């Protein structure tokens, strides 16, 4: 018997607000435990939550990006359960009336296969704190810095059928959140977390099988591995005629397996009810329109505009790895008449290597986009060779200086906009008239001879590629 895998995903994305969802406390990651904890975050008696408007705006932006319904009224509810790092004994979340519902995200599975993923809902909620089990042998520590951090929980319908689809969706969603500037996307720090609901059913069957929920998946690799394990486990049980229990399971990366965390019958009755400390969120259409106007460009739109620049899918994927990359690319493009392809090659090659070496990113570019634009202009215009451009780039990495000055310093008299080179080429062609005629009649190999002569004349201080290109042109013209 063969089965179809059915997967639904719940992503918790930490919103990049300055302060928490219901208090003015900062949300910086990695601060000293409890140093970013207000009386509100700690759930002291008598304090009250006040909603952070920035988080609401972010949820609306996300809703707009996935063409979802944005509800003019949504409600915060309390999810009640006891846990040491849940200070109030309840989490403020949205349950029956989420702020965003019924959206879609188109994903590209490669090989021209496209898929539309249905997003059931996206709602706002506060994060819990953290229990620190490894700071003492006898006690558990509680760090409430994370408590109250705004989360957007994004829930798909059970519409995914393979780990490839899952990872593809997650990468697209991750990219979207990054480009909307809603989430820093850092999976290791828990800014982008994913729970996977998986079930199997015999092919052709309509009703869904019993599902299990996988947690503790903090990398795309783990998600793939956990899913592979879990699908196999389900398959084995089903083929054996054994029941599948509805339960929550944790992925253990060390053992590469999933283990029961809790069974359904042991789950909390969360006793959701509307939080009486908070009014319903009312969203007026003017605000939605304003947010629509100020939306940053979405990855899909950027992609189609890049396609017009005749860039390959690979190049576009590279430029879309983060908003900072495409921003840098665009900045260079604005100030340079170099071919887009040349710019991408430089970013992917020389620049990326330099960033890697210095452990930097395009968010803190060591060489300004305008500077790189100037350099690439010189290259595009054959003023300098590729070799020299790289040397100047290396220099700029350590010290920012004027490019014309650097060209002089590095001992290469500028080619005077190519005129000096042209004069030399002209002289060489005149000297070797018969070889020139042979070349013109089809002996292409003679080009190398001419390049060699010119290089000799120029004492090697010029890029052979530039020389050969110019030679090709002038041999034909003269």
């Amino acid at each position, binding site marked *: 018997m063969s089965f179809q895998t059915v997967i639904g995903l719940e992503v918790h994305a930490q919103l990049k607000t300055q302060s928490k969802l219901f208090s003015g406390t900062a949300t910086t990651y990695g601060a000293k435990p409890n140093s970013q904890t207000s009386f509100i975050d*700690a759930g*002291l*008696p*008598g304090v*009250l939550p006040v909603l952070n408007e920035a988080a609401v705006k972010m949820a609306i932006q996300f809703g707009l990006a996935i063409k979802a319904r944005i509800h003019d009224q949504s409600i915060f509810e309390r999810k009640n359960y006891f846990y040491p790092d849940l200070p109030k*004994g309840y989490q403020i979340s949205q349950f029956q009336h989420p702020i965003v519902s019924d959206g879609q995200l188109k994903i590209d599975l490669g090989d021209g296969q496209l898929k539309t993923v249905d997003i059931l809902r996206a709602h706002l909620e506060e994060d819990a704190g953290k229990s620190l089990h490894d700071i003492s042998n006898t006690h558990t520590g509680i760090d409430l810095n994370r408590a109250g951090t705004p989360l957007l929980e994004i829930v798909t319908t059970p519409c995914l059928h393979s780990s490839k689809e899952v990872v593809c969706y997650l990468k697209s969603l991750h990219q979207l959140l990054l480009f909307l500037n809603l989430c820093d996307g850092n999976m290791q720090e828990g800014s982008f977390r994913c729970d996977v609901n998986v079930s199997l059913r015999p092919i052709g069957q309509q009703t869904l099988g019993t599902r299990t929920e996988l947690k503790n998946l903090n990398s795309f690799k783990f998600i793939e591995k956990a899913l592979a394990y879990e699908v196999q486990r389900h398959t084995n049980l089903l083929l054996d005629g054994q029941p599948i229990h509805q339960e929550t399971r944790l992925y253990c990366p060390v053992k590469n397996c999933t283990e029961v965390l809790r069974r359904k019958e042991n789950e909390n009755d969360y*006793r959701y*009810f509307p939080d009486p400390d908070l009014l319903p969120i009312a969203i007026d259409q003017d605000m939605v329109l304003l947010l629509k106007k100020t939306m940053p460009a979405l990855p899909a739109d950027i992609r189609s505009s890049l396609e017009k620049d005749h860039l390959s899918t690979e190049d576009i994927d590279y430029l879309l790895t983060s908003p900072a990359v495409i921003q840098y690319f665009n900045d260079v493009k604005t100030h340079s008449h170099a071919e887009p392809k040349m710019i991408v090659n430089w970013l992917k090659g020389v620049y990326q290597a330099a960033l890697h070496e210095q452990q930097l990113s395009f968010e803190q570019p060591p060489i300004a986009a305008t500077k790189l634009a100037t350099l690439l202009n010189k290259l595009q215009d054959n003023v300098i060779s590729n070799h020299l451009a790289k040397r100047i780039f290396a220099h700029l990495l350590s010290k920012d200086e004027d490019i014309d000055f650097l060209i002089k310093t590095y001992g290469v008299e500028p080619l005077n906009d190519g005129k000096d080179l042209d004069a030399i080429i002209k002289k060489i062609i005149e000297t070797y008239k018969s070889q020139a005629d042979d070349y013109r009649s089809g002996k292409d190999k003679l080009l190398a001879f001419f390049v060699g002569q010119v290089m000799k004349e120029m004492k090697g201080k010029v890029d052979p590629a530039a020389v050969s290109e110019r030679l090709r042109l002038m041999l034909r013209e003269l």
Partner: protein
Amino acid sequence: MDTSSLRSLITGLKNGTFSSTELTTHYLKRIHEASSLNAFITIDESAALLAAAAADKAIKNGSAKTLTGIPIAHKDIFCTNTMPTTCGSKMLADFYAPYEATIVSHLNNEGTVLLGKTNMDEFAMGSSNEHSHFGAVKNPWDRSRVPGGSSGGSAAAVAANLVAFATGSDTGGSVRQPAAFCNLSGLKPTYGLLSRFGMVAYASSLDQAGILAHSADCLALVLNSIAGFDEKDSTSVNKPIPNYETTLTDSIKGLRIGLPPCFFQKEVDENIQKATHDAATFFKEAGATIVELDLKRHALWAPCYYVIACAEASSNLSRYDGIRFGYRSKNAKTLTELITRSRSEGFGMEVKRRILTGTYVLSSGYFDDYYIKAQKVRRLIQNELEQALSTVDVILGPTTPTCAFKIGSTITCPTQRYLADIFTVGANLAGLPALSIPAGLKDGNLPIGIQLMGAHFSEARLLNIANIYQQATQWHQLSPENHRGAS
């Protein structure tokens, strides 16, 4: 020293007849003499005398405000950062809030002198003040009787003239019912008029801070200094606040007063029924029209209230888990034990009863039948009251079905006791302002209160009506002392 009214205190301080320090000393002495009432949980004499000295300085240099130098008390549900905030519970017996309630800040800024924090039913759950970790409070009119609750300590303190006025909180009648039992004027304003920030939550959608004082006039002066929007409370309402003092003596001619016959059932003490009818007659003679009101939903008030209040309480009180603050059991070996034992040992019986009730009505399988149904009923009650208040200016009725009962007399039957709230919970469910004023004595020494309930933000009108009544009657001027002296 004329301490008969807040106005006489203000005048005395202003004219230098006595200083705030003298006044504070006077009240502190009375507090000690009346310690058997058990009205206070915390008394801070040295802080009070310092505040009084500062008030005297302000009065001297002309920077005093209306209430500067007036000795007061806060119900121990309001967070103060200079003394503990116990909420009448073992759970918070040692809790010092690192912040103060907005109401407390307002009165501090006004220059009032805080003498201490008053006793209360644990977490404001109760209407007798017998459910306090710090013991029952006695009614100054009859020490064998309860002062009402949950603001029983505040009521006893004001009634016994231990402070000029006191704050209270009113979730289902916890200001008005003790006001009625102790011959005081008690106001529960419109939901959202006073900030809830720093007032320990019982049932958030019903909780509202209030004031216990000797007269409507005093309520107006105090309300002037504490009403207003607070950005720290999302449910507080941002709208202009009138000067409640300026309309106190407006004419009530043409006033339409609704009188629901359903408020006069046989369960209601006939002395109270008579006092309410007498008050209606007074208003009629003063030019008001009495209109019979049919409140079909009245029987649903108390059941609806207890479902919603308990549901919210069960969640609001989840934070008391012994982990970050408050009482922590020493007998726990595991995490689950730590939480359950801390709660089992830290909460009293009535609080546990309401937490369990609330947990039950929110549980899956019961949620629709109880909580959702109660919310629908609440809407019906709101609609009916709002509709009624579009035809009349105020609704008049008894505040309570009985006068102050004997301590211990109802402890075995909680549902019987819950009926003490049958006239007061409506205002909370609908978010309406309501006040209770003295309207007579039963058997010569048991105070009777009548309630006036108005439309949203009609506090000025309610205080005006109450003041007109008090200008013409003497009930509110009776105190346990002068009354005994007179009889």
